[in-house]
C-alpha cells in the first residue's frame, strides 16, 4: 500500500493483498486447472476455475506492480541482484531437462533419431534465433532510452520487443502445428518427448518474459518507470535468449 511508504519512522504493520491474490490465481489455474482437464477430463470445471482464477491473478499482479512502482523499499535496487540469483535456479531446471535429454540420446547410440522422426525444416529455428537476438537488442535500446528519461522512445522500443517476442511464439505454434500434422506429437518417440518438453518449457519462459514487458509497458503510458524493474526484466529476457542457443543447438542442429 502506498500510504505505508510515507512513514517508516512510526513503524506500523505493513500489509498487501497482492501476493495472496497472485497465489490464489496461480493455484486455481495451474494445479486445479490442469488436474480437472487432464486427470478428471471435466472441461467445464477447468473453464470455471480458469475463469475465476485469471481475474484474481491479473488483479494481484496489477496491484503488485503498482505497489512496486510507488512503495519505497527498505534498501533500493536489490531486485537487480536478486534476478541473477533466481536465474541460477532457472539454469538448473533447464540442466535437469537437458541432462534427461542427453541421457536418453546417448543411451540410444546408433538408434538415433528414433523411428517416426520427420526431417526438420532447419530454417525455422534459424529465423527464430535471429528474432530473439534482435529482441534482446531492441530491449537494450529501450533501456538506454529509459536511462535518458525519454519515456516515449522507451515505450516504442518495448513495443517493438513485444512484437518480436510474439512473432517468436507464433513461429513456435506454427512449427508445432506443422510437426503434429506429420504425426510427430509429444508421445511419438523419445526424441519428440524431449523436443516438445524443452522447446515448450522455453516458450513458456518467453511468454513470462513478455508478460513482464507488458507490466513494464502499461505503467510507462502513465509516465511511471522504475529503473530496477526495467533492467531486471531485461536481464531475465537476455537469459531467455541465451537459453535458446542451447535449445536450438541441442535439439535442431545436433
Amino acid at each position, binding site marked *: 500500500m502506498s*500510504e505505508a511508504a510515507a*512513514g*517508516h519512522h*512510526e*513503524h*506500523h*504493520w*505493513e*500489509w*498487501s*493483498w*497482492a*501476493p*495472496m491474490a497472485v*497465489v*490464489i490465481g*496461480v*493455484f486455481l489455474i*495451474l*494445479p486445479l486447472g490442469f*488436474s480437472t482437464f*487432464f*486427470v478428471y477430463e471435466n472441461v467445464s470445471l477447468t473453464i470455471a476455475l480458469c475463469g475465476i482464477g485469471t481475474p484474481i491473478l491479473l488483479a494481484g499482479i496489477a496491484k*503488485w506492480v503498482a*505497489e512496486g512502482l510507488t512503495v519505497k*523499499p*527498505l*534498501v533500493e535496487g*536489490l*531486485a537487480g*541482484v*536478486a534476478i541473477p*540469483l*533466481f536465474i*541460477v*535456479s532457472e*539454469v*538448473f*531446471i*533447464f*540442466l*535437469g*531437462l537437458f*541432462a*534427461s535429454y542427453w*541421457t*536418453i540420446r546417448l*543411451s*540410444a547410440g546408433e*538408434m538415433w533419431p*528414433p523411428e517416426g522422426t520427420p526431417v526438420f525444416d532447419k530454417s525455422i529455428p534459424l529465423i527464430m534465433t535471429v528474432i530473439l537476438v534482435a529482441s534482446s537488442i531492441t530491449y537494450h535500446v529501450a533501456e538506454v532510452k529509459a536511462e535518458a528519461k525519454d519515456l516515449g522512445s522507451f515505450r516504442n522500443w518495448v513495443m517493438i520487443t513485444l512484437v518480436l517476442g510474439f512473432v517468436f511464439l507464433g513461429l513456435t505454434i506454427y512449427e508445432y502445428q506443422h510437426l503434429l500434422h506429420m504425426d510427430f*506429437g*509429444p*508421445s511419438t*518417440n*523419445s526424441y519428440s*518427448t*524431449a523436443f*516438445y*518438453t524443452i522447446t515448450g518449457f522455453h516458450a513458456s519462459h518467453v511468454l513470462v518474459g513478455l508478460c513482464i514487458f507488458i507490466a513494464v509497458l502499461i505503467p510507462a503510458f502513465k509516465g511511471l518507470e522504475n529503473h530496477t524493474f526495467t533492467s531486471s526484466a531485461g536481464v531475465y529476457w537476455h537469459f531467455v535468449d541465451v537459453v535458446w542457443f542451447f535449445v536450438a543447438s541441442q535439439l535442431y542442429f545436433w
Partner: protein
Amino acid sequence: MSASTTPAWKEWVFTTDHKRIGVMYLVGSMAAFVVAGLMALLIRVEQSSLGPTIFEDPTVVGDNYNTWLYFHGAAMILAFLIPGLTGFFANYFLPLMIGAADVAFPRINAFSVWLFFVAIILALMGFVIPDTPDIMWTGYPPYSVTTSANTAFYVFTVHLLGFSSILGAVNFLITVIYMRAPGMGWNQLNVFVWTTVAAFVIQLIFIPVLASAVTMLLFDKYLGTHFFDAAAGGDVLLYQNLFWFYSHPAVYVIFLPAMGVLIEVVAGMAKNMVFNYKACVYGGIFGITLLSGEVWVHHLYIAGMPDWIRVGQMVSTLLISVPVGLMVMSLWGTLYRSSITYNTAMLYAAACFFLVLIGGLTGIPLAMVSMTVHLSETSFVHAHFHYIMALFSTFAIFAGVYYWFPKMTGKMANEKIGKLGFLINFAGVNITFWPLFIIGLDGMPRRYWDYEMYPQFEPYHQVALYGAILIAIGMAITILNWIGSAIGGEKASDNPWGAQSLEWTDTVSPPGAGNFKHEIKIAADWTPYNYGK
C-alpha cells in the same frame, strides 16, 4: 494511514511482516506435522499385528495404507521439516539476528508463505478426491505413471513448495548479504544465520532439478511422453537420479538449520562462546554444502551401477561425516566449562546430542556398499533416517520453539508441563525406533503393511506401537502447553535467558513492527555469544 485505522485482521491475513509470516509458517507446518503424525500412528497400528489390522486390502486405490505412507513422508519432509526450519525460524529470527527491519522483499515473502499454504491445501485435498495419491514421497516411476491414482496432485504440491522455497532462498540470501546492521562482519553472524544461508544455497541450486524431474513425471503420465519409459527409449533410473540429486541435499536443508538452532540454544543456555566458531562455519557448514551435491547415488546402491561409482560414492558419503563432525564438536565444546541451565529447551537440545549420535553412527554402515546391499529396504534404514530426520530435527525444532517462546509470545512457557512432555517424547521415540534397528538387521522389510513370512517380528512391532502412542501423548502435551502458555502464561521479560544475540538484547518481547526502536550499530569486538569468556 496509521496502524489504528487499518483493521487488525487485515494486518494479519495480508501481512508482509517477516515475524507474522514466520508465525504463519509455524502454524502451517505444525498442522502438517499433526496430520502426518497421525498417519504414522495409523501405519504403526497396521503393522502392530500380523495380517490385516485396519484394512483387509491395502492396495485398493483410495484412502488406504499406501496413501498414508505417501502423505506421512511427503508432509513431514516437505511441509513440516523444511518449512518449519527454513520458513518459520529463518523468517522470524534471521532478520532480528542481523539487525534488519525486515527481509529484502517483504511481498515476495508473503507470496512464499501463501504458496506454502495452498500446497498444504492441495496435499490435503488428496484425501477428498477418490484417487488419493499412493506413490510414497518419492514418486518413483514406473508405478507413479501406471497407477490409477492421482499423480498430478503430488507433482503440483512439489512445484508449489519448490517455488516457495526458491523465492525464499533468493529473498534471504539477498537479505543476509545487503541488510546486515552497519558494522556486522561475516564472523559476527549467528551460527544459525550461516546454517540458513547454506540451506538456502542448497535449495536454490537443487530444488529446480527436482522440479524438472516431477514435471517430466507429470508429462509421462498425462501427456504421453516417454522420459521414464524404457520400452520407448526412456530411462527409468533417470528419475531416481534426478530425484535424489535434490532429495539428498534436502537432508542438509533440514540438518543444517536444525544444527544452527541447537547451537543457538546451547550457547544461550550454557552462557558460553560457540566453541570453534570458524571451524564450525567455514569447515562444517561450508564443507557440508560443498559435499551435499556429490553423494546422492548412495540412495541407489542396489539399483545397479558399476563398482567404481559405488566406491566413489562410498568415499564421498563417508567424507561428509568430517564436516558434520566439526559441527557436532562445536555443539559439545560449547558446553565445556559453562554454566548450564537445564530448562525444557536445553533438555530437548541435550536429547539431540544423543539422537544425532545414534543417527550418525548407524549411517556409517549404511554408507558402506557391502553393508548397504544387505540393509537396503529394511527397517534398519527406516530407523536410521528417522533418528536424524524425524527425531533429531524435530527435537531441534522443539528446543528452538521453547528457547524463543518468550520472545515470540511475551509469555514464559510452562516448564513443568514442558518437561513432562519432553520425558514422554524422549521415551516414546526411543521405544519406537530401537526395535526397528534390531528387526531391520534380521531382515524386516521397510514399508510392508503385512509380514506373514516373519511372525517372529510381531512383538517388536507391538513395542514400536506402544512407543508411538507415547509420542502421540507427548506431542499433544507439548502443543497444548504452547497454546496454553501463549494465552495464559507468566509474563516474560525482554531477555529472560540473559542471552547476547540481537533478538534478545535489542528488541522487546514480542518485537513490534519495524523490529528495533533505534538504529543498530555493531562494534568490531561484538559477537552474538559475548558472555565474557
